[in-house]
């Protein structure tokens, strides 16, 4: 054969198949549609998985931050206190004596809170001893300095020492914010101090310098050892054998508030006024002031009650829906089954707006509720219409409303007519009353909260809007005629990231999941559908203080 013949042979085949057509079986399109649905479902699942992973990661991250913060705070607070106390003790120790015995005694006590208290009390006795000694020995006209535990550096007194010419700059203890919290703990020590002060004053009046130790022993026998050391230190100082130095405390210990100072009585009134009582009075006033400040601060920080307004947007997936087998093989039942499957399995978007309120149950736990208007919209494809009583002028879109068993009116002639495929939008509206418990993982200006709870969903209505010129919109409210349950309960779970904008305001971002406990459809419809909704909400909170 020549080339021309060959070409002719091939062309004849091309011509033979040019307009050739063979009808495929019906299930090819069904399988294609299933494949497409599956692909969409997978896409939705991937999105959901992404958001779930993001939410989980953010919660884990927030909890890690909270854990680290808690660890740091727990390990810093007592440590600071101990270091500060230690610093104070060492400062006093340096200024009074370098006696090794006392140094060892105080050093050993530094990590023990109860011992620290003792040291605080001892320090007072040391100061009293040394001061009283100095006062006795040098100049009685100088006012007696019965300094307390808490003093401002600017108010530190200078006290002339004995004949050795040593001038001592007394660095007094200062209050720090951390000290305020430990004031209560110190009160016992302060009372002991007062007793010591009284005893010292009495001793000064009678020239009995060491009677303070005796008084202290009477007040608290457990301090005997330390007080003995203090007495020894006082004695050493009196003898001029101690090297007196001063050490500046670290900036952390600088006083933030005015320190207490015992009112300095006139020399001639020293014997008549009881400085101990004055100290107690002054401290009581300070306590009141600190308590008032604490209360004010706590009030400003507390967010006991709040109200909120917000909206949320997201998507829902109904891939787990199932439709019961239809016993009848009529066209009507087949179409209703297909429509129910398509409608109940359709994924879509979800929007909600609402108001809420919340209250704090404890420092970390909150309870919040509210009222929200929820709308869920999905699209599906229908290829039939429902004609009632041969009214072809007003056919209804194929939907569960049209096929619902409870709508089947025996008196009416309901027919199904096959049509070209068209798109149908199904819009379902609910009123939801959520109630959630929350745990505040981070409770600062930036807050992280984990929420879980339930919502009571009240079905309002659903609207079926066909995407065709000849078909009218159908709306069905709640009640016996509706395929939807009038009431349903959903589980809620979510995270809340918030930021305090001011004294009264907080803005929060709420990614969350909603899952109905029961099918959204009534049991007699034969359809089981529990759509999983993921949405992200934005709320604006007003806080009542």
């Amino acid at each position, binding site marked *: *054969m020549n080339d021309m*013949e060959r070409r002719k*042979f*091939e062309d*004849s*085949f*091309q*011509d*033979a*198949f040019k307009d*050739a*057509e*063979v*009808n*495929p*079986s019906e299930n*090819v*399109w069904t*399988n*294609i*549609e299933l*494949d*497409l649905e599956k*692909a*969409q479902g997978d896409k939705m699942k991937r999105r959901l998985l992404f958001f779930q992973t993001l939410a989980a990661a953010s919660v884990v991250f927030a909890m890690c931050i909270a854990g680290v913060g808690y660890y740091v705070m727990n390990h810093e607070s007592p440590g600071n206190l101990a270091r500060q106390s230690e610093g104070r003790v060492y400062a006093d120790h340096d200024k009074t004596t370098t006696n090794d015995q006392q140094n060892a005694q105080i050093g050993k006590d530094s990590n023990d809170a109860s011992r620290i208290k003792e040291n605080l009390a001892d320090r007072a006795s040391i100061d009293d001893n040394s001061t009283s000694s100095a006062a006795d020995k040098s100049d009685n006209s100088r006012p007696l300095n019965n300094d307390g535990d808490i003093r401002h550096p600017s108010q530190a007194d200078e006290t002339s020492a004995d004949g050795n010419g040593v001038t001592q700059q007394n660095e007094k203890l200062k209050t720090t914010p951390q000290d305020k919290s430990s004031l209560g703990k110190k009160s016992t020590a302060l009372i002991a101090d007062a007793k010591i002060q009284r005893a010292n004053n009495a001793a000064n009046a009678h020239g009995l310098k060491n009677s303070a130790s005796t008084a202290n022993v009477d007040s608290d026998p457990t301090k005997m050892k330390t007080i003995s050391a203090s007495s020894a230190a006082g004695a050493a100082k009196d003898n001029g054998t101690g090297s007196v130095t001063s050490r500046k405390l670290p900036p952390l210990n600088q006083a933030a508030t005015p320190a207490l100072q015992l009112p300095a009585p006139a020399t001639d009134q020293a014997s008549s006024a009881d400085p101990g009582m004055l100290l107690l009075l002054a401290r009581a006033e300070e306590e009141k002031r600190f308590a008032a400040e604490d209360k004010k601060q706590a009030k400003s920080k507390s967010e006991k009650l709040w109200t909120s307004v917000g909206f949320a947007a997201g998507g829902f997936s109904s891939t787990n829906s199932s439709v019961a087998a239809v016993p009848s093989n009529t066209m009507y039942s087949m179409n209703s089954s297909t429509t129910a499957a398509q409608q109940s399995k359709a994924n879509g978007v979800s929007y909600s707006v609402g108001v809420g309120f919340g209250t704090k149950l404890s420092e970390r736990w909150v309870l919040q509720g509210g009222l929200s208007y929820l709308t869920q919209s999905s*699209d*599906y*494809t229908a*290829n039939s219409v429902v004609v009632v009583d041969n009214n072809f002028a007003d056919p209804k879109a194929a939907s569960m409303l049209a096929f619902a068993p409870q709508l089947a009116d025996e008196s009416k002639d309901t027919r199904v007519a096959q049509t*070209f*495929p*068209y*798109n149908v939008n199904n819009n379902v509206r609910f009123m939801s009353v959520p109630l959630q418990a929350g745990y505040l993982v981070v409770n600062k200006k930036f807050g992280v909260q984990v929420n879980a709870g339930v919502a009571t969903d009240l079905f309002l209505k659903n609207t079926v809007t066909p*995407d065709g010129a000849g078909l009218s919109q159908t709306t069905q409210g709640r009640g016996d005629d509706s395929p939807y349950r009038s009431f349903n309960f959903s589980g809620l779970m979510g995270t809340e990231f918030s930021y305090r904008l001011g004294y009264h305001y907080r803005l929060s971002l709420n990614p969350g999941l909603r899952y109905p406990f029961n099918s959204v459809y009534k049991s007699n419809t034969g359809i089981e559908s529990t759509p999983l909704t993921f949405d992200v909400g934005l709320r604006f909170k007003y806080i009542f203080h």
Partner: protein
Amino acid sequence: MLSEDELISGCRKGNRASQKALYELYCRKMLVVCLRYSKTTAEAEDILQEGFVKVFNAIKDFRQEAKLETWITRIMVNTALNVQRRKLYLYPMVDVEELNLPDTEVSVSGIHFGQLLEMIQTLPHGCQIVFNLFAIEGFSHKEIAEKLGISEGTSKSQFARAKSLMQAKLLKESTYYERYGEAKI
């Protein structure tokens, strides 16, 4: 009836109605393409299904430089080749001896495409594919060799064998009709 542009636009949005309409428009022609590359109708329908899913997923990238039908046909052919390639792996194509062709011209005009399809489906795997690609799709042997990962010579020899077999079958059919005087379908 939606226009082709409207169909494409609807399919790009993922509108199921548009997808169904597009399927309805081309499924019959495409099934013939799939049948040419397969041995059974079930196999062809599987290819058709896989091909249309690919069409709907890839239609976002369709730039309308070619006709929609041509583009869909190309996807169907490629899908069919992918399916057949697995079989070709099991039965690799090799050079085959050319049969002695009869000098008489054998015409296919007047023969129903259904019979031609049956003849094509009875060809050996390699011959069937090369025959389809060369005689009906219009690819050159070089292009076929690149598509199937074979040599150009193998493609030529496979086609020659396919053509010989087809001619023999056509001749047999003609003789049968002549002998029994039945009209061609």
